[in-house]
């Protein structure tokens, strides 16, 4: 027995041997991994470290334990509002944007190729260009010259212009609308490509086997074939819907009226860029980090069950 043990290699030794065999590959990955570590992996840990300190860039960070977190949860009503706003936005634009992307992609795939290509561009365009959403400030402008206001005034539906982007009653709705307008992004492309990738033979077989309409086809053939793309689209939808920030600044200003559309990232930027309270900003970042990971993992688990 002891002989055998001596001769067989431990997993660790085997690993080292393999690593030596493939050392060229490590060299190949090195440049990317250096940047990836420097700007993605290490910053996450630095964030966690800073979140336990008071740090204003000028002086070295001073360790203050959990104080930042205590302040966030017990002493910062604006953070609570930001979390609430972010979750409302995410819960609405996430799932609806996701379903919208999928339905659009699915309907597009019923069309002839030329028309499909054209409509793909039209639907994808809003999310391509970084700040096309700025146009909504003119559509929903608060004076009588705003596009929507002027139409409503002319029709006699309102007597005075509505401050769409400054009135708490409407701000959130408009941010949601704009986010939905931009929700057909990379996930949408993935869906289109995935739908085209389902083998034609499967549909033909289904036709013979008595799948009566396109809804049955969607449920029994298309969806089970699309699980990987559905998972990818979900990651994009969750991450984007929790990261809304530039849109609220462009539409509602910073800070927005009574913080009505203040999101977690707005709050993070407020402390990180304007107030230079880096430790506190990092505590916000850490919470957002775990929130995004947790929701993503949960959604992946649920979607993994599609078609099984």
């Amino acid at each position: 027995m002891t002989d055998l043990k001596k001769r067989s290699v431990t997993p660790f030794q085997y690993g080292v041997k393999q690593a030596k065999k493939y050392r060229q590959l490590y060299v190949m990955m090195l440049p990317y991994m250096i940047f990836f570590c420097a700007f993605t992996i290490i910053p996450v840990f630095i964030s966690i470290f800073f979140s336990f300190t008071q740090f204003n860039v000028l002086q070295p960070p001073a360790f203050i334990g959990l104080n930042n977190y205590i302040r966030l949860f017990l002493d910062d009503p604006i953070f609570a509002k930001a979390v609430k706003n972010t979750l409302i936005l995410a819960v609405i634009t996430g799932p609806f944007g996701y379903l919208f992307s999928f339905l659009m992609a699915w309907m597009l795939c019923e069309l002839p190729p030329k028309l499909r290509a054209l409509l793909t561009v039209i639907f994808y365009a809003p999310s391509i260009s970084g700040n096309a959403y700025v146009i909504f400030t003119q559509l929903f402008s608060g004076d009588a010259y705003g596009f929507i206001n002027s139409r409503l005034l002319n029709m006699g539906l309102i007597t005075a212009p509505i401050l769409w982007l400054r009135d708490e009653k409407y701000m959130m709705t408009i941010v949601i609308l704009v986010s939905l307008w931009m929700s057909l992004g990379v996930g949408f492309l993935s869906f289109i490509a995935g739908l085209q990738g389902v083998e034609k033979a499967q549909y033909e077989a289904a036709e013979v086997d008595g799948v009566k309409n396109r809804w049955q086809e969607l449920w029994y053939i298309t969806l089970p074939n699309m699980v990987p793309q559905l998972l990818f689209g979900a990651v994009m939808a969750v991450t984007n819907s929790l990261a809304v920030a530039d849109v609220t600044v462009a539409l509602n200003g910073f800070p927005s009226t009574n913080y009505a559309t203040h999101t977690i990232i707005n709050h993070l930027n407020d402390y990180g860029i304007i107030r230079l309270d880096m430790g506190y900003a990092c505590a916000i970042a850490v919470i957002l980090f775990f929130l995004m990971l947790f929701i993503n993992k949960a959604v992946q688990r649920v979607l993994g069950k599609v078609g099984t």
Partner: protein
Amino acid sequence: MNRVKLTRNQKKIQKIMKKAERQQKKMHRSAFSRLMTQGRSNRSTAGSITLLFFLFLLALLMLFPVVFMVSNAFKPINELFIFPPRLFVINPTLDNFHDLSELLADSLVPFSRYVFNTLFIVVLGSVGHILLSCMAAFPLAKFRFPGSKLLSSLVLMSLMFSTAVTAVPNYVIMSYLGLVDSYWAVILPAFSMSLGLFLMKNFMEQVPTALIDAASIDGATYFGMLWRVVMPAVKPAWITLFIVSFQSLWGATGGNFIYTENIKPLPAMLSQLSGSGVARSGVVAAISLLMFTVPVVLFVISQSNVLETMATSGIKE
């Protein structure tokens, strides 16, 4: 034994008859409904028309802000402030573009400088991103070695949080490296965007292993395999990576990193202009249109390549 066979045959016959029936129905359909249903018997013409109509309406809704933006760029100043504002332009002019070039010829930093800055950032960032991603994706896609699974799952995980999370430490790292207020503060993080690596890795997994084995028998090094065998086979993926990094860098204002006016990119100038009040509305409309058009045109050109890459974008468990 015999009976089972018989029923099987009967079933087959029934199926064939059903299919023939459907085929016949299809033959009776008009040319129009054949077009609408793509010749599939389990599609109804009415359903297709409803779907098309619905899509058409939604496309109009989605297009509406875009149309407004495009026509704004061609509106003379009196039409920009007309009451009620109109969706379409009445007397289209190129005044706004003209004003833009005039304004920028007079300004301290010439317009061409902003264009150069943005192009420099976009081109260098994209090329570096494509090269580094290819080199990192090839080992992860085609080999199993210690750490490969861990690295793949790290990349996948980094898709799950946005860059805002790492913004503060990134600034600290940049200032530590002495890169604040230079192009590199925007370019270097773009090298390691994880979406690019993810898409490239998935696409490379499709390249037949036999090709790589053949190269290996011929005595190629890993670099040789990547350059001569894999790179030519994944052309759609590098076009896609270019589009992805272009889109993210084209809109980059360099906000927190770049302070010197000389090296600010285009979007930074756009936001300064739009802050300068009503008098510049026409110019802002013109620039917005320019900023919007370039990435859309690039996407139109590369659409088929992008979709080919996206077909492999799924997350496999």
